[in-house]
């Protein structure tokens, strides 16, 4: 049964349903409903919550709980996620599964608290130090946030890799009808993903497990990094997700993710009512990036140009340009500072070319 859920609370409940039992976080707008919800909810299902002393501690608590074999997560908003980057790099390098939510607000610096997509580079290109990637999802509705969260821990466990889900203040604060799927059995997850082989939860079988990211010999570290990148190749093959909206005959192709993709959809409906054939490619995974879908569209004769729309000064547009590879023009339309474009702005842009 669909219920009206606030984005942040739906995400929290979906995580609980997915088997998340540990949450570590620090207050920051606009995601506070997630820790607030977890602070009481996790104790109802035998889990635990810590309001950490800092974002740095929170992500390291996630590292600890994940190392011990649990499903653990943290959430924050942009400045807080910057602070977590050290820990995320360690988690990726120690190959620990976990989920990190970033409800993006506008930067740089303290910036503002309104919705933004300024953390695309940080989320998809590493964020912390060294060669690594998170698997990055960008849902665009509360229901999709729920569904992605529900599977995120499975994906994280499957590849032993951190998963990041990025939304923005708009998605976190808004209410929409959503349905939370049934509770997963946490103990089965522990067995299913063979955590007994590696989790440092205090074994008494005489075999010590070690969770570590120190590989001080260059050869050892290179071998590890190459293996990590083999894993990313497999993730790209199996986990890339993208939505194509009214693309069959589209001449003007918007590329947008998250809440901005919804604004594009509204603009497309309006443009088509006026006889202009517009469509949308909406990456659902930002890493791995659905470059192949974009390239295929670029090869179609019907497609005249791409317009990447972002609440930033243009970050994802670089990946669109790489995918299009000069086959068609790629333009950019953006708002920043916490401002949101309206469907009418995009209609005007397509009609007037500005």
């Amino acid at each position: 049964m669909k219920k009206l859920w606030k984005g942040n609370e739906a995400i929290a409940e979906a995580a609980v349903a997915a088997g998340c039992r540990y949450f570590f976080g620090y207050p920051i707008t606009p995601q506070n409903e997630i820790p607030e919800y977890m602070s009481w909810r996790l104790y109802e299902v035998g889990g635990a919550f810590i309001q950490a002393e800092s974002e740095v501690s929170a992500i390291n608590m996630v590292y600890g709980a994940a190392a011990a074999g649990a499903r653990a997560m943290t959430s924050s908003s942009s400045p807080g996620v910057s602070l977590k980057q050290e820990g995320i790099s360690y988690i990726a390098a120690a190959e620990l599964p976990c989920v990190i939510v970033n409800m993006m607000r506008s930067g740089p610096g303290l910036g503002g608290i309104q919705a933004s997509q300024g953390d695309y580079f940080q989320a998809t290109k590493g964020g912390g130090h060294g060669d690594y990637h998170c698997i990055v999802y960008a849902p665009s509705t509360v229901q999709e946030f729920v569904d992605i969260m529900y599977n995120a821990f499975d994906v994280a466990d499957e590849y032993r890799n951190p998963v990041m889900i990025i939304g923005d203040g708009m998605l976190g604060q808004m209410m929409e009808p959503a349905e939370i799927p049934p509770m997963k059995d946490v103990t089965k997850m522990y067995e299913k993903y063979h955590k007994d082989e590696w989790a440092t939860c205090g074994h008494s079988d005489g075999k010590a497990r070690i969770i570590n990211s120190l590989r001080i010999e260059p050869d050892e570290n290179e071998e590890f990094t190459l293996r990590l990148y083999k894993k990313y190749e497999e993730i790209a093959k199996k986990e890339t997700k993208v939505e194509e909206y009214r693309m069959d005959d589209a001449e003007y192709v918007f590329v947008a993710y998250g809440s901005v993709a919804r604004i594009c959809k509204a603009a497309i409906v309006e443009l088509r009512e006026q006889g202009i054939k517009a469509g949308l490619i909406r990456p659902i995974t930002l890493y791995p990036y659905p470059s192949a879908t974009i390239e295929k569209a670029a090869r179609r004769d019907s497609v005249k140009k791409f317009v990447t729309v972002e609440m930033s000064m243009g970050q994802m547009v670089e990946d669109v340009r790489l995918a299009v590879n000069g086959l068609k023009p790629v333009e950019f339309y953006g708002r920043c500072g916490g401002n949101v474009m309206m469907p009418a702005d995009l209609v005007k842009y397509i009609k007037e070319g500005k």
Partner: protein
Amino acid sequence: MKIIADKPKLLTETPMHYCPGCTHGIVHRLIAEVLEELGKADNAIGIAPVGCAVYAYRYFNCDMIEAAHGRAPAISSAVRRVVNPDNLIFCYQGDGDCASIGMAETVHACMRGENITVIFINNGIYGMTGGQMAPTTMPGVKATTCIYGRDPKKYGNPVHLSEMLATLTGPAYIERVACYDVPHVKKAKAALKKAFEIQMQKKGLSFIEVLASCPTNFHMTPIEAMDFVKTQAEPFYPLGVFKDITKEEANS
């Protein structure tokens, strides 16, 4: 042939990389002996630091987690909530780790009264990175980032971490020990045992500060370095128990 002294089983066969005269090896052995004597060696969980003891995970034959610099208390706080309450958890940390970059984690784990044991190795210097000033470097002592000696006006003052943490409600037991001679090694072992017993009784966080030597970065022989701890460090960082809730309980 009769074996009269053996290596604790909790220590692996891996040869330790520590310099001659360094205190880390002694403390590693004491932890291993104590955990075995308490019958808790097989399912303990250790958190290794960044610093000279970064390889601690190679030396302890139990589940080990290598932490980012200073983050061991945060990591162990989470592990504590996941694993069986009977698994003993210890953080092994140096002075840069525990009292500088990880000060917030240390203080807040103490404030929460986490049921863990923190072993804090205070040698007053950054060993692994080559002898830079530590948060515990004493006034007048030279380091590579205070080459004329620590002048508090320029470089700030050192911290007495045990005394500071003892002002908090959360910790159950705090003691400072040294390892520069046999009687003190024995006292250090007793302190570690008490610390782990307190964890076994689920009374909260126990914190053992060990005054340690670093002959390489003190530019001393091992014997001179031990003597430095005895004659210079100990007067500045007095040994003793700074907090013991088992005593407080007995008195109340």
